C-alpha cells in the first residue's frame, strides 16, 4: 500500500523462464527465447539423461514389472553385487566347500528310501558308508582305527566311520531345519512388532524378553525334558529358543526402515500394510538376520550335540554326533580315544566351516565392511 519509494517495489527486473511459453515446449530442445541460465540447465539435464541412457545396456522393454506385487524380483542388483563380494572371499568359499562336502557325504552315506503302503521308493541308491551304522559287531568292540574300520569301532562293535558319515544327516538336517523354522517364526513376528509398534510391539517383545531371561541351553533342556527325546522334539526345542534372536534383530532393523521416506511414500499411496512389510520393509531389513541365521546353523548343531551329550537329544544309540560323544565318554575313560575324537572332529569341522561362511555372508551383505578392511 505504501509506495513512497518506487525502488522498494520488487519485480522491476524479471528473469524469464518460468513462464508458460517456455514450459509449453517439448523437453527435447532448448528454446531460443529462454535466458542463458535456463538453456544451460536444460542442456545439463539433457546431457544427464543421455549419459544415463548410454551407460546402460538397452534391454528389452519391461515385461515383468508390476505384474505380481509379492514376487521377490527386484533385488537383483544388490544380490549380484553381494554374490560377487562373496565369491572373492576365499575363506568363505573354503567354508562353503566343507559344508557342501559334508552335506554330500551325509546324503550319500546310505541309500535313502521311503516306504509307504507297501511300496519302497529308493530316492538315492548310493552307499558310501561301508556298513550299516546300527549293525552290531561288524568288528571287535572298541577296536582302534584299521584298514577295515578307518575310525575304529565302538563298544558294540559298530563301524564308527559309517556312523560319523550317517550322523551328518541328523546334525546337518537339524541345523538347517531348526534355523529355517525359527526364521519362519522370528521374521514375521519381528517385522510386525517393529512395523506396527504400540501394544503389538509391546506384547511380542515382552514375550521375547521373558524367553530370553532363561539361558538358551537351560530352556532347551526344559523343553526336551517336557516333550521327551526324539528328532522332532529336539527341533521344537531349538526353534523355540532360536526365533528370539531373529525377531529381536529384525525388529531393530525394521524400526529404522519404517522411518524411511519410501515406506512413508508407500503409505501415502494407500498400499496395504501387508504389502509394505513384504515388499519394502523386510527385504531392506533382512540382511543382518541372514548373517545371524548363517552363523546360528553352527551353534544350533553344537546345541543339538550338547543336548545329545547330556542324553537329552536323540535316543541313545542313534548315530548322531553328540549322542555318539555321550556314549563314547565311558570308552574314553578306558583309553579308547578314537570313539570320541572322530565325532568331535566332525562337529568341529562343520561348525568352523559354517562360521567361515557366515563371516563371508556378513562381508558380502555389507559393502562398507569390505572397504573398511581394505583401508586398514
Amino acid at each position: 500500500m505504501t509506495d513512497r519509494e518506487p525502488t522498494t517495489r520488487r519485480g522491476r527486473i524479471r528473469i524469464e523462464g518460468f513462464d508458460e511459453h517456455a514450459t509449453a515446449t517439448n523437453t527435447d530442445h532448448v528454446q531460443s527465447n529462454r535466458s542463458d541460465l535456463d538453456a544451460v540447465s536444460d542442456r545439463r539435464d539433457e546431457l544427464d539423461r543421455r549419459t544415463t541412457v548410454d551407460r546402460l545396456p538397452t534391454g528389452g522393454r519391461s515385461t515383468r514389472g508390476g505384474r505380481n506385487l509379492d514376487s521377490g524380483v527386484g533385488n537383483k542388483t544388490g544380490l549380484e553385487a553381494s554374490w560377487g563380494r562373496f565369491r572373492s572371499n576365499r575363506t568363505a568359499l573354503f567354508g562353503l566347500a566343507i559344508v557342501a562336502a559334508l552335506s554330500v557325504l551325509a546324503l550319500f552315506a546310505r541309500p535313502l528310501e521311503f516306504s509307504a503302503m507297501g511300496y519302497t521308493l529308493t530316492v538315492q541308491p548310493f552307499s558310501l558308508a561301508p556298513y550299516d551304522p546300527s549293525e552290531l559287531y561288524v568288528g571287535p568292540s572298541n577296536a582302534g582305527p584299521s584298514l577295515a574300520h578307518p575310525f575304529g569301532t565302538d563298544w558294540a562293535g559298530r563301524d564308527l566311520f559309517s556312523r560319523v558319515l550317517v550322523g551328518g544327516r541328523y546334525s546337518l538336517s537339524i541345523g538347517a531345519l531348526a534355523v529355517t523354522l525359527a526364521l519362519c517364526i522370528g521374521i514375521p513376528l519381528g517385522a510386525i512388532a517393529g512395523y506396527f509398534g504400540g501394544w503389538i510391539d509391546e506384547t511380542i517383545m515382552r514375550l521375547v524378553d521373558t524367553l530370553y531371561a532363561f539361558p538358551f541351553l537351560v530352556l532347551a533342556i526344559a523343553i526336551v525334558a517336557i516333550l521327551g527325546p526324539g528328532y522332532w522334539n529336539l527341533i521344537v526345542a531349538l526353534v523355540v529358543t532360536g526365533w528370539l534372536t531373529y525377531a529381536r534383530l529384525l525388529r531393530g532393523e525394521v524400526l529404522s526402515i519404517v522411518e524411511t521416506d519410501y515406506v512413508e511414500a508407500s503409505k501415502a499411496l494407500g498400499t496395504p500394510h501387508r504389502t509394505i512389510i513384504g515388499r519394502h520393509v523386510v527385504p531392506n531389513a533382512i540382511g543382518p538376520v541372514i548373517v545371524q541365521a548363517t552363523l546360528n546353523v553352527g551353534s544350533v548343531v553344537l546345541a543339538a550335540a550338547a543336548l545329545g551329550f547330556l542324553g537329552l537329544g536323540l535316543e541313545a544309540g542313534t548315530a548322531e554326533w553328540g549322542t555318539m560323544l555321550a556314549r563314547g565318554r565311558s570308552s574314553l575313560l578306558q583309553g579308547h580315544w578314537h570313539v570320541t575324537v572322530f565325532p568331535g572332529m566332525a562337529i568341529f569341522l562343520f561348525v568352523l566351516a559354517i562360521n567361515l561362511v557366515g563371516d563371508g555372508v556378513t562381508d558380502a551383505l555389507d559393502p562398507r565392511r569390505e572397504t573398511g578392511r581394505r583401508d586398514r
Partner: protein
Amino acid sequence: MTDAPLVRVEGLEKRYTTSDGLLERLLGTGQTVRAVDGVDLEIREGETVGLVGESGCGKTTLARLLVGLDEPSAGTVAHRGIDPSERSRRERRRLRTTVQYVFQNPSTSLNPRLPVADLVGEPLAVHDVVPPGRRDERIGELLETVGLEASHANRYPHEFSGGQRQRIAIARALAVEPELLVLDEPVSALDASVQARVLNLLADLQAEFDLSYLVVSHDLSVVEHVADRIAVMYLGRIVDCGTPAQLFDGGAHPYTEALLSAIPEPDPLWEGERIVLEGDVPSAIDPPSGCRFHTRCQKLIPPAGYDLDSDTTRGLVALRADLEDLAAGEASAGGPLEALRPSSAERETSGEPAETASVRRTYDLPSTLSDPDAEAELSGALEALAAGAVEEARSRLEAAFETPCESRRPELRPVNEAGSARRRIACHRFDDRFERRLEAGDDNRAPDSNERRR
C-alpha cells in the same frame, strides 16, 4: 466447477506427546507439542497453493495430515465436501487416491531395491487402476508423461539422476490419477540446474490433467513463481494468506514482510529493507501467548495509553520475558540477562544508575522514554530490579506495558482491500475493530485470559 472446494481444511489440529518411555506414558508427564494448531485452508480445482514457513512451523505436519499420513487430533479435511473420517475404510482408501504426496528427496523416497516398473506399478496394483494385463503399457505411458522413456522401466533408482528420480516419484503419484498433489519441497533436494526443469514439468502436468498443487516450501521465492495463492505459516497457524501479488505489494503480515525481505532482488536500484528476524522459532511445546509472532515481531503494537514506538515496545516486551525466565530460574548465563547482574565492583564504583543504564542499553531502550508516563513506570520497575526484586519488576512491567500482541490471539480474518476478497491476515494491525478500540483509549487487557501463558 462445483461449489465445494477440492479440499477444505477446517480447524485442523495435530498434537504430539513427547513421552517415549512406558513410565512417562503411564504418569502422563509428556509434554504436548502443538505442531498444527487450528488451521483453515481451501484448495480449489486447478489451483496451486504455496505453503511457506520456517522449519518447525508445522507445514510438513499439515501436508501429512492432508494426505492422510497422520490422523488429525481435531478438525476435518474434507474432499469435495466429504469428510473421509465419516466414511467406510474402503471409501477412505479410494478418497486417499485423490490426494498424493511427492517427497522432498527422491533418493530416499524410492525403494532402492525395486526397479522402476515395480515402483510405478505398485499404486496401479494396489488400487487396481488398470487391469493387470495393461499395467506394463500404463507404466510406460506414465514414464513418458513425466519425460522419461518407457524402456527405463526395468532399471533401478540408483541408475538415474536426481531430477529423473523426482520424475519417477511424480509418475508414481500420478499413477492413481489424483486431483491434488502435495509437493513437499519438490525441488530443494535437486541441483539448481534441474530445479527449473522439474518445475516446468509440474506446470505442464497441471495444464494437462487439471491438477491442483499444494507446494510446501521454506523458500518464499520458489513458491512465489508457481503459486496462485500463498499461505504463510508460523508456529502451527496460518498467519497470512493471499495471492503472491498481494503479498508482495506491501501491507502484509509482519512475518511475511520479514520473509519477503530475505529474498534477494536483482535490481541494483532496489532499496528494500532487510528485516532480520532475531532468534529461532519458539518451541511449539510452550508457544508464546497472544500472537505467536510477538517475540520476534518488528511491528509490535505499543501498549495503550502511551505514546511509544514499535522498537521501544519490543525492548520492553523482551525485557519482561527475560525477567519472567529469571524469576522462573530458567535464565541461561551469558545471555542478555548478564546486564541485570553487573559485577559487585561495578556496583560500588558507579552505583545504581549505571546498572539501570546497562539494562536499557541491552534492550535498546532510550535513556529517557519519549512518553513521561511510560518513563515513570519503566524507571520504577528498573529500580525494583536493581534492588533485587525481580518478580516485582516483572509484574510492574506487565501491568504497565501490556501490548495486545501479547495478550490476544489475532484471528485469521479477511482484510478489506479493494478486489481482494480472499486476502486474510492474522495480525492486530489489520484488525479495524481493534485499532478503533485502541484509539478510543479502551482498556486493552485481554478478555480471553486463557490465551495467556502459564
